[in-house]
């Protein structure tokens, strides 16, 4: 491990002077994981990358492939909200499922005993994202929003 730290430090120093990138594997082994993202959320963010590999008509019923840009917007939405939630409350955000949605969109779906929330990230970057969620009772959130900005409305469910 000391050898790795030395190695990483050398890369880091070189990086600031000459923009030499260190191999990601080096930093992954040395620096602690980002605390704002749980292990399961980190795994889900990685797993979701498979979505952009789905071919045309991947469901045998005419489904559109998922554009890489939509996927990146969906992953950024999740990461940004998880980091904000951790900064505000010191808690890790529950892990959603990230799945292909209709018409080339991506669904970000939280479902647990306390609440269910579905956020739809559209294929068209100029269209707003839409969402619906409830606590299986009278607490309901729904509407549209800019997924590049933090939506505090989700707190009604995330903090329930």
């Amino acid at each position, binding site marked *: 491990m000391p050898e790795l730290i030395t190695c990483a430090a050398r890369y880091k120093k070189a990086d600031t002077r000459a923009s030499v990138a260190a191999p990601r594997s080096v930093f992954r082994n040395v620096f602690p994981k980002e605390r704002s993202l749980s292990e399961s959320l980190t795994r889900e963010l990685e797993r979701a990358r498979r979505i952009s590999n*789905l071919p045309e008509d*991947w*469901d*045998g*019923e*005419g*489904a559109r492939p998922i554009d890489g840009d939509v996927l990146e917007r969906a992953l950024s939405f999740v990461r940004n909200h998880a980091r904000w939630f951790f900064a505000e409350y010191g808690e890790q955000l529950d892990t959603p*499922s990230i*799945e*292909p*949605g*209709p*018409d080339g969109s991506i*669904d970000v*779906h939280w479902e647990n005993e306390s609440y*269910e929330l*579905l*956020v*739809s990230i559209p294929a068209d970057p100029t269209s707003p994202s*839409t*969402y*619906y*969620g*409830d606590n299986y009772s009278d607490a309901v959130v*729904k509407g549209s929003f800019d997924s590049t900005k933090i939506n505090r409305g989700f707190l009604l469910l995330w903090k329930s």
Partner: protein
Amino acid sequence: MSGSDGWTPEEIPDADHLYLRVHRNHARKGKPAPGAFRDHGGGMSTDWWKYSSPEETKARARIPEDKRVVSLHVERVRSVPMNVLHTPDRERENRAHTDVVGEKNAESRVKLRRAITDIPIPIPGQ
């Protein structure tokens, strides 16, 4: 009421069930993901249990082994709200074909997913 030629659309009772094919890429933790609820043309294609079995619905897929079948309760589908329209498909010889018509937005897809029931066994004559 059943038409004399067998292809006239009928009124589907609230107590009945519809069968929906779900691709394996839309199955998560034993349940379809919300993305499984989407339109194909005029609506979301399902089969009315009166004229189809789950096995027959699955067999109508282009690649049946990629599909599983779930059952939706008609009354719960209508409460989303959605229109449930019997649309027999003579071309594909599918008398059970039924369209679930209505916007498939985030709210309706969450609620359609909640209309899933365990696949019941139809009782002949009822």
